[in-house]
C-alpha cells in the first residue's frame, strides 16, 4: 500500500520530518502491517527462491566441510585462518548496527531510530546467526568444540583456557546473541499482539497469539514493558562495544605483525558500526520502496545513517593511518614490512587497495548533501562499504598471516570452491531469514511509530524533527 502523499506544505527551511504525511493510529497500523497480511507477491517468491538456492549451497558446503575436514577449504600453514574467520568477523560487524540503533540511540532518545530499529535488530540477529556458523565450522573437530568450549563442570575436571581470547569470544558472542534476541522479541510483543488482533484466520490468530504472550495492552503491561525495554537497552549498550572489542582481541593479543596492536578494539567497533549501517542501508533502500514504508523511513533517516557511515568511515580510516604510523614509529622491522611491503606490494596488495577505495574514499562522498540524499548513490556506496569491510578483514586475517616472521614459511593463499560457496551460502541464509522476517513480522516497530506520532502530535514543544536538544 502506498504511503499517503505528504500534502501539508512545509517551510523549505524546516528540516525533513520523521513521519511524512498526516496519520492516525489506524493508518499507521494499516500501512505498517499491510505487508504482513498481503499475500506473498511474485517478487517475494522470486527473491525467496534465490535465497533458498543459496541456502542450499550452504548446506552442501557445510556437509562437504564436515565430511572432508578443513582441508576442503584453502587454509594452510601459515594461513591457519582464512575465509571462515573473515566471514565471522564480517557478519558480527554487520550485526552491530542493530544493537547500536536499538540500544544506544534509545538511551540517547534519538527519535529517528524508531522507524528502523526493528529492521536493524532483525539484521543483527540474522547476521549473528551467520557469524556463529563459522567459529564452530572452522575448527578441526567441531563435534568436540561445541562443548569443550563451554565452561561446565565435567567429570574430567578440565576447564576451558580462560587466557585464550577464543574462550572470551564464546562468552561475548553468545551473550550478544541472547541479549539481541530478547531485545528484539520484547520489542515485537505489542506488534505481535496487534497482528493477533487483526488476524483474519484462526491459525494466524493462534500463532501470533502465542507469540504475543498474552499481551493485552493494559497500563501495567505498558509500564513493565517500558522498564524491561530500557533495562535491556542498558544491558545491550556495553555489548555494542564489548563484542567487537573481544573479537578484536583474537588478533590483538597475538604476536603476529598486523595483529599485535592496541588500536584494534576501537577500530574494530567503528568498523563494525560502519559495516552494520552499510548493510542496513543496502536492505532498507529496496525494502522501504517495495514494502511501502517511505512515509516512516524517510529521507531524514537515510541521511542520518549516511552521516553515521561518514563518521565511522573516518574512524576506520584513522585506524588505517595509525596502524601504518605505529608500524613506522615503533621501529619494529616485521611490522614495518607487514604494512609497507606486504600490504602495499605483496601478492595480496590488490585487496588492500580495494579496501582503501571502498572504506576510505567511498564514504567521503557523504560530505555532500546531494549524495547523502540520493538513493542510488547511497545504495551503491553502501554496497562498496560492505565489500570494503570484507576486504579489511581479509587484510587483517590473511595478509598478516601469509607473511609474518620467517620468510621460509611465507605461503600464498587461494580459496577453494567450498570457501566461496560457504560465503555465498551465508548470504543465502541471511537473505532467507530476512525475507521470512519481512513476510511474517512487521518490518517497522508499529507501536513505537504510533507512540512517536503521538509524541509529535500532542506535545507542541516537541521537536518535530525528533532530535533532542
Amino acid at each position, binding site marked *: 500500500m502506498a504511503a499517503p502523499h505528504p500534502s501539508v506544505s512545509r517551510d523549505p527551511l524546516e528540516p525533513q520530518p520523521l513521519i511524512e504525511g498526516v496519520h492516525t493510529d489506524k493508518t499507521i497500523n494499516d500501512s505498517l502491517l499491510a505487508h504482513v497480511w498481503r499475500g506473498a507477491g511474485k517478487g517475494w517468491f522470486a527473491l525467496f527462491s534465490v535465497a533458498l538456492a543459496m541456502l542450499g549451497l550452504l548446506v552442501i558446503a557445510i556437509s562437504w566441510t564436515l565430511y*572432508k*575436514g*578443513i*582441508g576442503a577449504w*584453502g*587454509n*594452510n*600453514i*601459515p*594461513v*591457519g*585462518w582464512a575465509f571462515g574467520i573473515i566471514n565471522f568477523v564480517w557478519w558480527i560487524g554487520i550485526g552491530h548496527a542493530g544493537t547500536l540503533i536499538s540500544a544506544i540511540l534509545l538511551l540517547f532518545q534519538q527519535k529517528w531510530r524508531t522507524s528502523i530499529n526493528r529492521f536493524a535488530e532483525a539484521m543483527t540477529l540474522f547476521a549473528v546467526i551467520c557469524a556463529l556458523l563459522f567459529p564452530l565450522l*572452522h*575448527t*578441526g*573437530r*567441531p563435534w*568436540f*568444540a561445541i562443548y*569443550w*568450549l563451554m565452561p561446565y563442570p565435567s567429570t574430567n575436571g*578440565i*576447564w*576451558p*583456557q580462560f*587466557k*585464550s*581470547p*577464543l*574462550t572470551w569470544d*564464546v562468552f561475548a558472542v553468545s551473550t550478544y546473541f541472547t541479549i539481541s534476541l530478547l531485545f528484539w522479541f520484547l520489542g515485537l510483543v505489542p506488534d505481535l499482539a496487534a497482528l493477533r488482533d487483526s488476524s483474519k484466520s484462526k491459525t494466524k490468530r493462534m500463532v501470533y497469539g502465542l507469540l504475543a504472550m498474552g499481551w493485552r495492552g493494559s497500563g501495567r503491561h505498558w509500564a513493565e514493558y517500558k522498564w524491561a525495554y530500557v533495562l535491556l537497552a542498558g544491558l545491550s549498550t556495553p555489548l555494542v562495544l564489548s563484542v567487537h572489542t573481544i573479537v578484536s582481541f*583474537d588478533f590483538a*593479543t*597475538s*604476536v*603476529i605483525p598486523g595483529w599485535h596492536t592496541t588500536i584494534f578494539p576501537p577500530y574494530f567497533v567503528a568498523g563494525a558500526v560502519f559495516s552494520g549501517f552499510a548493510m542496513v542501508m543496502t536492505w532498507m533502500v529496496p525494502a522501504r520502496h517495495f514494502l511501502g514504508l517511505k512515509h516512516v523511513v524517510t529521507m531524514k533517516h537515510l541521511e542520518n545513517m549516511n552521516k553515521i557511515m561518514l563518521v565511522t568511515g573516518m574512524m576506520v580510516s584513522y585506524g588505517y593511518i595509525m596502524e601504518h604510523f605505529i608500524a613506522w614509529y615503533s621501529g619494529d*622491522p*616485521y611490522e*614495518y*614490512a607487514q604494512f*609497507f*611491503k*606486504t600490504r602495499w606490494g605483496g601478492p595480496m596488495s590488490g585487496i588492500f587497495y580495494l579496501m582503501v577505495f571502498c572504506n576510505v574514499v567511498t564514504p567521503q562522498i557523504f560530505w555532500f548533501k546531494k549524495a547523502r540524499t540520493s538513493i542510488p548513490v547511497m545504495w551503491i556506496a553502501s554496497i562498496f562499504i560492505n565489500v570494503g569491510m570484507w576486504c579489511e578483514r581479509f587484510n587483517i586475517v590473511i595478509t598478516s*598471516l601469509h*607473511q*609474518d*616472521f*620467517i*620468510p*621460509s*614459511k*611465507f*605461503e*600464498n*593463499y587461494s580459496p577453494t570452491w567450498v570457501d566461496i560457496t560457504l560465503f555465498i551460502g551465508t548470504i543465502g541464509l541471511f537473505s532467507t531469514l530476512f525475507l521470512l522476517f519481512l513476510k511474517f513480522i512487521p518490518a517497522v516497530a508499529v507501536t513505537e511509530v504510533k507512540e512517536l506520532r503521538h509524541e509529535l502530535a500532542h506535545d507542541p514543544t516537541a521537536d518535530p524533527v525528533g532530535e533532542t536538544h
Partner: protein
Amino acid sequence: MSCDDNKDARTKDRDRRRSLPVVDKSVAPAKGAAPADGGNGLWRSQRPWRSIDERDRQGAMPGAANEFPAGTMDVDDNVSRRGFMQLLSVSTAVATVGAACQKPNEKIVPFVRRPEEVTPGNPLHFATAYALEGYGSGLLVESHEGRPTKIEGNPAHPQTIGATTAIEQALILGLYDDDRAKQLRQGVTPIAWRSLLGQINANNAKLAENRGAGLRFLTAPTTSPLLLDLRRRILERFPQAKFVSYSSVADDGAVDGARMAFGKPMVPRHRLGSADVILSLDSDFLAEGPEQTRLSREFAARREPSPRMSRLYVVEPAVTVTGAMADHRLRMQGTEVGSFVAGLCSVLASRGLEKLAPLASLSHGERKWDMKWLVALAGDLERHRGSSLVIAGCRQPPAVHALAAALNAALGNVGVTVEYGAPLTPDPLSGPAPLAALAQDIAAGAVDTLVITAANPVYTAPADFKFAKLLERVPNSIYFGLNEDETAAACKVMVPAAHALETWGDVRATDGTVSIIQPLIAPLWGGIQEAELYAAFIGEGDVGANKLLRRYWQGQFKGGEFDAHWERWLADGIVPDTGVAAEGGVAVDGAALAQTVAPLLTRTKSGMEIAFVVDPKLYDGRFANNAWLQELPHPITKLTWDNAAMLSETTAKALGIETGDIVEVTYRDRHVDAPAMIVPGHVDDTVTLPLGYGRTGVGVGGVAKDVGFNAGALRTSDNPWYDRGATVAKTGRRFKFAITQDHWTMSPDGRVIPPPAVEGPIEEVLKRDSKFHEEIEVRRGPLPTIHEPVDYSKQAYKWAMSIDLNKCTGCSACVVACVSENNINVVGKENVWRGREMQWIRVDRYFSGNDDSLSMITQPLMCVHCETAPCEYVCPVNATVHSDEGLNEMVYNRCIGTRYCSNNCPYKVRRFNYLNYIADYTAVRELGMNPDVTVRTRGIMEKCTYCVQRIERKRISTRIEGRTIADGELETACQQSCPTRAIVFGSLNDASSKVSQQHADPRRYDLLHEIGTRPRTAYLARVRNPNPELHVPDAHGAGQEHGKGEHE
C-alpha cells in the same frame, strides 16, 4: 665424534642387539600366532593379513593377474602340474628336483616361548646393513614385536658411524610399500617358486650343454662375499656365462681415471679429517656416494671455528649440498671442469710442483673462469701440501679423475687425505660400457637366459640401447626386482625380491669391512632373496639364503667356535678384521698421463650443455614409489613431488623462460617436455635434468606414477652425464610446482632475521670484540619483562637443543628420520602446493649474494619449545601446555583444531591435519608405525615434541636403575640421524652437558629472540672461512646478511 665415542656406543648397544632366531627345521607357524610374525607358511605368495576386508583393501595384483582375486592363486594347480610334468621329463635332474618339491625348510617364526630379552612393548634393535651401489651402510633397526619401525645408523660401522642418509631412513616405508611386487609370475601366469626352480633346473641342463654360453647375469654392482662366491660357483658350472654389473649412476670415472694415472683400476677413499684445504671438482661428496655419511662427519668435525677450520672450494654447475657448504664456490659448466683442472695443474706446476711439470703444458682451452680465483686456490693448495685434497665427482670423465689423482699425488696428499685401493668387486666398471657389451650380445642373439638383478635397467639404461626392445630377443629373461616396474614388464619371468630388511646376505663397506645383512621380518609378500636366485643356477635354489650365508662364512671362518662368533657378528653389525688396506706407493707417470689426457680435454662440441644429475631423493628412480622421499623437499630447490629442468637466471631470461614454463629439451633428436625452474647459482648455458622421475610403466606404483619427467629418455651411453648440443624451447604451457619454500632471501622487505652466517677470515671472527660479537650479543640473553620467568633449575631436567649451522649441510636425513619416528603423514603434491606439508622439521635455506658469489645457508627449524610460548595461551581448550621440564606439549585428544596456536607461532612450526591422511594407510603400512607415538587423525594440530616418547622411555629405564639420564644417552630421532652431529639435545640443568656448552657458545643465538619467546633451541651461527685473497669484506659484511637473491 671420535672413534672412542663409537666404541662406547657399541658397548652400550651390545646388549640391546640380538640376532633373530632362526629355526632350521620345517615348522609350520603356530595357529593363532600374533600377526606380526609375517604369517608366512607354506606358500610364499601368501599374504600376511588375511581378514576379508583387508584383503580387499590390499588391492589387486599387477598386470593381467588382476582378474584373479588375491589369494586364489596361491596354489595354482595348472602351473604346479605343468611344473611337475617338466620335472619328470628331466630325468637327470630328478634328485635336485626332489628337493625343490619339498616345502622350503627355513622360516622365521614367532616366539613360542618368550626369550629372555623380549618384553612386549619394549623395542629391540638389530644390526643389519643396506647395500647401495654395492657398498654397505651399517644400520640398527628398531623392532617392535617383530615389526621393524625405525632405521638408525650403526655407530660401529665404519661408513655410517651411527648416522644415516635420508634414503636409508626411508627404507622402512619401502618395506611396507603395498605397491611392491607380490606375485612370482611367468608372463601373466602366477607360478610357485618351486615350479620356477624346476624350470631353472631344466634350463640349467640345457645351458650346461654349451658350457653356459647363452647365460648372462645383469647385476647391480656388488661387494657381497656370498654373492661373489655364488658367482664363482656359477661360473665354475657355466664357464661361458657372463656377469655384467650395471648401475646408471656408477662411479666409473674414478676407476678409469685411476687407471690412467696409476696404470691400474683403483678406487679413491677420502679422509677429510686431515684435510685443511679441499677442492671439489663437481663432487657432491657430502650428499652422494657410499661414503657420504662418514665424509660429512669428518668434514663437519673440521668446521669448528678455530684456526684449524678447513676451507672448501667447490667447482660445480648447479648448487649441491656440498656447494652450499663451500667457502668459495665457482659455478662452471660440467664440460669445462677438465680444462679448469688442467689450468690448475699448470699454475701449480709454475709454483714449483715438479711432479706436475709434464702436465703444465696441457691445453686448457678458452679460459672461462676467474683467473684470480684459480690462482688463490692454487696458492692455498700449495701452502697446504700434504693436507689438502682434490676430489673429483662421479659425473666427471676419467680425465678429470686422472688429473685429480695426479694433483693429489703431486701435493703429497696420497696416504694422508686420500688413499687408493683396489676395487672390492671383480667388475670395477658398472656404467654404460659393460652394458654395451651385453647389448651387443643380445642383439647378436647370443643370449639365451638373462637374469636381471640390477635395479630396473629398462628404465635406467641409456636411451640409445633401447633396452626394452632388446629384451624381447632374449628367450628366457628373469627379472628379480622389488616392484612391478618397466623391466618387470619387459621380462618373461618376474621374481619378487625380498626387501633389504627381509634378506639374509652380506656386504662390504668401502674400506672392505663386512656386515652381515639379517632380516628383520619374514618376507611380507613371499619375496625371494638374491642369493637364492643365484643358487638356483647351481642347483641349490631350495637351500635358503640363511643356510647359504652361514655355510659360506663357516667355510671362511678359521679358529674357534663359529656359532658364537656368528652371533657376535650379527649383534655388532660388522665382521671384525675384514677391512682391506689401501695400497701404498702409487706413482703417477706425468708424461704418459699428459699424453693420454690431452686429447680428452679438447673441446670439440658447442651448443648448450645438457647435464644429468642423480636425484638426492629418488636416486636413479628406484625410490620413486617412496612417498617420504617424494615429499621430502629437495635440499636446494625445496621442490617436492617433481623434478625440474634447472636453468640459471641469465640463460632463462635469454630464452624467455620463467619458472613454471614447460620447455621442450631436445638432445640428439630425442626430446622431453619438462617444467623449467630457475635456480640461483646455476651455471649459464646449461640445463640440468635430475634422473629418476617420469615413471609411466604399467606396473609402476601409485606414488611414482606420472611424477615429473623422465630425463633418462635423453641420456646416451657415450655421454651419460654431460654433453653439448641441447636445445631448450618454450612450449607455452605452464606447470605448477609444489615447493615448500618460495622465498630465497633471508630478509625480504627489510625483515631482519638473525644472522645465521658470518663471513670473514676466521681469526677476525674469533676475536671477542669483533663486529660479529656485537651483532650476535643482541640476539641472546634475557630481555626486559614484567613477568618473572619460570625457574626450571629445580627440575631434574631442563630439556634443550642446539643446532650448529656450521655443521648442518641441509642433507635432510633428519626430516625423514623424524617422519619415521613420529608417524608423520604424507600429504601429497596438491596439499604441499597448498602449503600443508606435515614434516615437523623444516630445513630452511636462504641464498645470498648473486649467482657468481652465491652463499647458501640451511637452518633446520622445528618447534623451539619456547619457555613463554605464544601458542599456549591462545588455545581455548588447553590442548597445548608446558611441562615441568620445559617441553611445549601437544595434547592430541584435547585438540579441537582452532589453528590459533599455529597462527600465533612466530616460527610457523606447527602442522595441522587438514585432511584425514591416515585414511589411506593400508594394514601393511600400519605395521611400520611407531607404537610409541599417537597417530593423529584429521583436525588436529601437531608439531615437534623433542621426541618425548624417547625421553619417557629413557626415564623409565634409568629410574629402574635408580639413576638420572646421563648426557648423551638420550638422542632425538633427528639428532641420531644427523651425519654431521649438528643437532645436540640434552638438559641445561647439567652444566657439563654438551647442550649446555653449546648454549654458552659465542656463536649461539636465539631465533626471533626479540619477541621474547625464550626458545629452548639455540642456533650456533655459521662461520665461513674464506681465503683472504678472495674475500671482499664489504660484499657481505660481517654479521647480518643482506640477501640480494631473487625474491618471488
